[in-house]
């Protein structure tokens, strides 16, 4: 299969303009003849659904939550980047583009990343117009902060709840269109299959989670904004409902899955306390601006932090990366934490934690300043751990947080299946091997507000309105396969809970495919996953009925998909014999233990094609060409 990214020619800065001029438009009077299905109503899905409806298209939107306002975009705390240069500190579209592509360790597509930086400014304008209460200075203008190691202040924020406020903005735009009758909303509804008609995505099969009914929905195009797959690790900062099912079902219908091994592990989460946990709480990494990270120098030192003298502490990030210190990028900071814990120097009851200590900052700035900056985070930490970070250093540990990989899309955000568009975290395109802080919200809204609404029109104009009927045999066949899979899950009647399978899978993934990976470990993981999957289908216990609300069957279907998806993930990690961004292969590091990228062999997008259950998927490569940036090596020393 030849992967055509459809990247427009011409100078980087003009590509998007030229492209918008050259793509086809749908006549305004004809827009009402087209219907789009939008699955997932987080930042990307809600903004896309609302914008498409505003343009005059009919939209059917779906989410598994009880309301679009619950989508996990809401969890983002820190902020959203834009190249406004309001602070007059030398920011520009080019700089935001460059920081993003470099942060991704040169594994994303130049043209997409540049476009992201270009539309970043429109997003802020749009959000302010919706009434989003971004922080402001005393003069009434918008405030910014520097975030995630950026050298300029370009992050807009609404206290520690930026994701919430942006999501509620997109939600309100969506609610307005629902009220106007242009969007038909299906909450508590889960997509379980994609329907292709003559090779084009023309519908989905869903399960109504309240009644258990299986329903068919047809449209002229399908848009997936179904988020990331971080819960393949089970323990993650993602919401408990986040899952890979919609994307994975599309993959099984022929959509390519790109770079699944690129997953971000966030360094500042509250450490886990016991096996019962399935969710970790993230704290904004802005904490690292003032907190110092350390562990005891000696293994097994169980003394209370105050009793460990200065010279017996190892401020390992400051030691290893003198110029960036505690602000070293997320991947480096996460990996270093795991290293010291694996070395037996971790702190807290489980030994999987490191200190994030504010005593020096409190001494320098006073408690009041620290309270103003981080008060709500300190309170949250205290609520969860019952320890007061003003008195005792916080404990943190990395956790799975964001997934850069996703379904492969071209410049139009269309997958290799015509008509199937993928937006937000669910696609792969903009962050490469690692995502910068405050860029997830930016990408979700860029796709939904300012990119998809144009590019989907090009597809509509080319194929015309088709008025697909759900009585077609393709819908019948897809529905049948969904039904029989659910019946099979009920029929297992085993002894082991679905939850315990998810935990077991998470453990395999965290140990062998988490922060650091190697050839032998990944091969082991693949065989363990296969064995676990087999056991699942022989011993999973699914109680209750199919014709009413049943959280166990929902969960079982999602875990079954994770059990297949995890294998593809490991094949991808195995194939990528280099270390880049968040993907660290132990075999490929410098003598100082830094990531060793291999641009000659691996400057490509790895896109995987489904070839059968339990069979290694087929690899397709999209070579990445860089015409405008030089591939430098990151150095945070």
């Amino acid at each position: 299969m030849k992967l055509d990214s459809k990247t427009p020619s011409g100078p980087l800065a003009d590509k998007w303009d030229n492209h918008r001029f050259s793509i086809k438009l749908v006549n305004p009077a004809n827009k009402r003849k087209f219907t789009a299905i939008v699955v997932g109503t987080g930042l990307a899905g809600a903004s896309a659904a609302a914008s498409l409806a505003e343009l005059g298209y009919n939209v059917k939107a779906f989410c598994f939550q009880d309301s679009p306002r619950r989508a996990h975009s809401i969890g983002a705390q820190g902020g959203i980047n834009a190249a406004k240069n309001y602070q007059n500190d030398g920011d520009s579209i080019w700089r935001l583009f460059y920081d993003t592509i470099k942060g991704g360790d040169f594994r994303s597509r130049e043209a997409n990343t540049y476009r992201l930086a270009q539309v970043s400014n429109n997003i802020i304008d749009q959000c302010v117009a919706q009434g989003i209460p971004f922080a402001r200075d005393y003069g009434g203008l918008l405030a910014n902060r520097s975030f995630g190691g950026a050298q300029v202040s370009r992050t807009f924020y609404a206290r520690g709840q930026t994701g919430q406020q942006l999501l509620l903005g997109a939600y309100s735009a969506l609610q307005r269109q629902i009220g106007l009758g242009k969007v038909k909303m299906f909450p508590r509804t889960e997509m379980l299959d994609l329907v292709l008609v003559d090779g084009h995505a023309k519908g989905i099969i869903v399960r109504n989670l309240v009644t258990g009914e299986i329903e068919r929905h047809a449209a002229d195009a399908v848009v997936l904004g179904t988020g990331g797959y971080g819960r393949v690790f089970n323990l993650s900062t993602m919401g408990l409902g986040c899952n890979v099912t919609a994307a994975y079902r599309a993959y099984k219908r022929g959509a390519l899955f790109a770079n699944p091994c690129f997953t971000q592990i966030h360094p500042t989460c509250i450490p886990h306390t016991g096996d019962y946990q399935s969710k970790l709480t993230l704290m904004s990494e802005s904490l690292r601006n003032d907190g110092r990270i350390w562990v005891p120098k000696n293994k097994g030192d169980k003394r209370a932090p105050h009793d460990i003298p200065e010279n017996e502490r190892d401020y390992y990030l400051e030691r290893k990366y003198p110029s960036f210190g505690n602000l070293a990028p997320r991947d480096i900071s996460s990996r270093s934490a795991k290293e010291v814990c694996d070395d037996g120097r971790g702190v807290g009851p489980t030994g999987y934690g490191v200190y994030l200590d504010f005593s020096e900052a409190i001494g320098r700035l006073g408690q009041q300043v620290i309270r103003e900056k981080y008060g709500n985070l300190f309170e949250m930490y205290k609520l969860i751990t019952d320890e007061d970070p003003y008195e005792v250093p916080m404990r943190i540990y990395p956790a799975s947080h964001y997934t850069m990989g996703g379904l492969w899309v071209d410049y139009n955000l269309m997958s290799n299946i015509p008509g199937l568009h993928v937006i937000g975290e669910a696609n792969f395109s903009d962050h490469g091997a690692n995502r910068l802080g405050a860029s997830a919200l930016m990408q979700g809204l860029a796709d939904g507000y300012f990119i998809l609404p144009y590019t989907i029109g090009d597809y509509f104009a080319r194929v015309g309105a088709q008025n697909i009927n759900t009585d077609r045999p393709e819908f019948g066949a897809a529905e049948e396969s969904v039904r029989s899979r659910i019946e099979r899950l009920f029929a297992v009647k085993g002894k082991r809970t679905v939850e315990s399978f998810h935990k077991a899978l998470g453990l395999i993934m965290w140990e062998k495919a988490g922060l650091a990976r190697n050839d032998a470990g990944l091969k082991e993981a693949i065989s363990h996953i296969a064995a676990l999957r087999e056991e699942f289908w022989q011993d999973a216990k699914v109680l209750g009925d199919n014709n009413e609300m049943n959280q166990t069957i929902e969960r079982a279907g999602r875990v079954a998909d994770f059990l297949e998806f995890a294998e593809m993930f490991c094949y991808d990690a195995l194939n990528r014999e280099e270390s880049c961004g968040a993907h660290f292969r132990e075999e490929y590091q410098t003598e100082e233990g830094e990531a060793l990228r291999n641009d000659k062999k691996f400057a490509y997008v790895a896109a995987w094609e489904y070839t059968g259950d339990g069979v290694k998927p087929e690899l397709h490569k999209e070579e990445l060409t860089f015409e405008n940036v030089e591939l430098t090596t990151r150095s945070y020393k």
Partner: protein
Amino acid sequence: MNFTLRVWRQKNAREKGCLETYQARDISEDMSFLEMLDVVNENLVKDGIEPIHFDHDCREGICGACSLVINGIPHGGKKGCTTCELRMRNFADGDTITVEPFRAGAFPVIKDLMVDRSALDRIMQAGGFVSANTGGAPDANALPIKKDTVESAMDAAACIGCGACVAACKNASAMLFVSAKVSHLAQLPQGQVERVERVRKMVARMDFEGFGNCTNYYECEAVCPKEISVKNIARMNREFLKAITK
């Protein structure tokens, strides 16, 4: 820690429900209330009993999905805290804990502790927005807004839409929820154009959905996990009065 739970079980909207008693054993004080329920559920499933159903997602107090009336109080009564944030160390070992769904005429039970809160979405559809189509916005700094004004709007915008205010109110009033949105947008310049219409439409929809009236008990404010102030209700009343006398 060990607890005795009395949990509302109801198979679906049509059938009657009742309180069932379960034991929660070996519970760590660090567990959240929902993690405690997860543990109970794992054991129920092992015994062949369908797990207790409840809504939840983010488990960090921001999505508004979790609910539950714990010992008679929505979200369990710890100030500024959702059920998913509530830790078991706030209970005493050996306690009997009663867990029921959010109750209100406008929130029909779906199953066990899960209720249908879509009425809140429908109130938002009636007017909880600024009609700003994508693309036409002026530069974000074109209109300076006083810092205090934005902070006050943000206080109201922090609502997570969980519906605890409704569940706590004797009249099942949604005034705190609705007033949070009205108040958020009424304070900002972007909200001015539709200010009058917004409050009128949202209040009308609130009444239509069967939510009760506010008679100033302020139970809503006491249970709100985001500590949204009842001052917003006063502001909404003023807004509404202006709207209907215009």
